[in-house]
Each structure stands twice: as structure tokens, then as C-alpha cells.
């Protein structure tokens, strides 16, 4: 069975339906996921696997907290690969993670826009 990219309903339930709080979390997410992707690219560039695994770990936590399970699993795999200094696997996983995030981010944006209006 295919996992949903973003189990938004489950997340909202977990937040007791507090959409204002959801918005607050998504604002943090939008900012921090960008910072950590940036860090990951830098780390891959300099083969700094410790930095990479730390950034992947942070993203994994964020994604799990927001019920973005598919991307969270990719981030978890990236964390493991980078901890084991598997260069090409890491690179591939980072690309995949980025693609998965690209699919989610517009949804995040529309949520933010929707709650605001």
C-alpha cells in the first residue's frame, strides 16, 4: 500500500484541530527545511557526512512531526547512508528527498494561504 505523502488529516487531529497552530508549525517548517537542504548540499559538496547526517536527522524529525511520512523515510535513509559515509547513496537520497519535498511544499503553501484567508 502506498503511503500518503502528507497525512494532513491525521496531523490536524493530533493538533486538536488547531489550525492557527498548524500554520505556526508550517511557517517554521518552510524556513527550516530550506536551511537544512542548503546545509545538506554544502555537506555533500565537501563530503562532510557528519553534517549531512545531522541535517537529515533534523529533517526526519520535522517530517515525522508533520506526518509527511514518505519524505520522512527518505530522510531517515539519508541519515543512515550519510552516517555510513556512503557517498553516492547519500547523493541519490538527497535528490529523492528534494523531489518529494517539492511535491509537498506547494501543498504547504496552499495550507498557509487557506488558513490566512
Amino acid at each position, binding site marked *: 500500500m502506498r503511503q500518503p505523502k502528507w497525512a494532513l488529516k491525521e496531523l490536524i487531529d*493530533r493538533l*486538536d484541530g488547531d489550525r492557527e*497552530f498548524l500554520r*505556526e*508549525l508550517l511557517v*517554521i*517548517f518552510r524556513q*527550516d527545511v530550506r536551511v537544512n537542504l542548503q546545509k545538506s548540499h554544502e555537506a555533500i559538496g565537501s563530503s562532510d557526512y557528519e553534517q549531512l547526517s*545531522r541535517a537529515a*536527522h*533534523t529533517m*526526519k*524529525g*520535522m517530517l*515525522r*512531526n*508533520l506526518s509527511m511520512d514518505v519524505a520522512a523515510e527518505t530522510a531517515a535513509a539519508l541519515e543512515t547512508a550519510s552516517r555510513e559515509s556512503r557517498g553516492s547513496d547519500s547523493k541519490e537520497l538527497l535528490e529523492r528527498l528534494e523531489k518529494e519535498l517539492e511535491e509537498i511544499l506547494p501543498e504547504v503553501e496552499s495550507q498557509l494561504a487557506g488558513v490566512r484567508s
Partner: protein
Amino acid sequence: MLVAEDDALSRTLLERTLQRAGYEVISVENGAQAIAELVKEDAPRLALLDWIMPEVDGVEVCRELRRRKDQAYTYLILLSSRESKEDIVAGLESGADDYLTKPFNVDELKARLRTGLRILELEDHLVEARESMRFQATHDLLTSLWNRGVIVELMTHEIMRSRRERSCTSVMMCDIDHFKAVNDQYGHATGDDVLREVARRLHNSVRSYDMVGRYGGEEFLVALNKCNPGSAISRAENLRNKIAGRPIQTANKPVSVTISIGLALSTEFTECTIEEIMHHADMALYAAKAAGRNCVRVARPSGIGTPTDEQPKETQVLTP
């Protein structure tokens, strides 16, 4: 309670969840800040620590806090996204009380925090009981002064120390004059009021590092540390005046009492044992009683002198 989590999103989520559950939350971003918060006075007793944080991680926070044994117990919960058994064992061995895996389930988190609170409450009861027992074991029930065993022990240490440091400890045996008459005339409840008030006045008339204990029924032992031998007599006179100076307000009526004091200076009895010094102080007390009470007598190696003696003379010696 304290939340230590480097990831802003998790931190916000935890903070809000805990606030909703009624906790007052202090949140920090790393392990070093967590330690700084947890060792403060009135620090939170309950802490949720993220396992992986830059520089000082959650496990190190646990270790550091458990190394410090001087403060109240802090209940530590590690937050982990790892699931392997070794990690959990390592975490618990570092001193954590519990762990939770992320992303946390709100009900489970609340339940585990309640467990923490229960343990802390239990700890507080035990500490309170221990402190109360310790107080009872070392203090006199009626006057709250040191009890006989403790005052003698403390004084012994003090005299030993003053001998090493070539300073002087003054030992004063103080006894309420005609105390039996107070009991007979006003009853034991009034007698107890008198004992309490004499104890209070003695206690309040010495420095915080001096020691006052109840030695026996109406007898008190005062030890003045690092006491200048030249001023010991005036300090004894001061204690005597504190009692004789004004009547004691008892529940019943004002009662005037006086005390007699036998004084011995540790520097005058460098060759004596503690028991011998106390015996000398006791003999001086007898001499004070014999001299008409409400006065101070000083024990000299050669006998007993009056406070006015500059040099003890043969004629003033009252041999025991």
C-alpha cells in the same frame, strides 16, 4: 518543566502540547543550556531532553546531572527517534529515568510525565521525612537546640580544630538557678516556657558559628569558636545578663530567672582530654553556684578563679 530540543519545529510542538497539558515550560535549544537551567536554584524538576543535539547531547546532560548529587532529584526523559535496543540501554544507563520515541503520542507523553511527577512527589516525601528524622535525632525536642550527644561531638571537633589552628574555644556550662523552684511554684508548663526562652536567648546571643546545646534538664552547653581568651569572660557575662536582664514572659506570668556559668578556655587546658575540660567547666559552675549564683566563674589549671582575676592567685583557688 524543561524542554531541550534543537529543532525549532519539534520544540514548538512540544512546548504547545505541554502548555496545553497544564505545564509551565522553559525551553532551550541545546544541552549546555539545559544543564545551566537544571542546576539553577528552583530549577525545573522534570525535563524532556532530545537525544541528539549539537555539542552536548541529551545523554551527556543526564550524565552531568547525575554526577551532581547535591541537589533535588530531576526526572529526566530522553526523546529519541532511534529505535535500536543498545541506544535505549545506553540512554538509561546515562541516568535517564525514561525515554520516548519521536514523533511522540500526546497521550503517552502526558502519561509518562504523570509518572515522573509521581516519582518526584515520592522523593519529596522521603526527603522531608529524612530531614525531619535527622532534625529529631540531633536536636532537643523542647528547645530545638542541639541535643547532648551532638553538642558534645561538635564541641569536641571544634576544640580539636582550635588546637591545630592555635586558636581558642570557650566552653561554658550554663545552669538555670533554682529551676526546681520555678517548676514547683508555677508548674511544669511554665518551666518549659522558661527553658525554651533561655534557650532562645542563648542561641540569639552568640554568633552563627558558635554552638549551643541542651546538656541536661536545665543545663546548657555553649561553645564559642575562635574566641579571644581576653573577651571570653565578657561574653559569658553578656550571656548571663541576657537571662537576668529581663523577666521571661511565660503563658502564665512573667518569671525572673538567672543563670550561673562555669567557663573553661581550651587554651588553658592544652594537655586535657575533652572530658577533663568539661569537668573543669562543671567545677567552675559549681563554684559559681557556691558563690551565690547569677555569676561567672573561670576554670584555671590551678583551680577556679573569679572573672576579675587577671592572674589566678592561690587565695582564689577553690579546689574541687
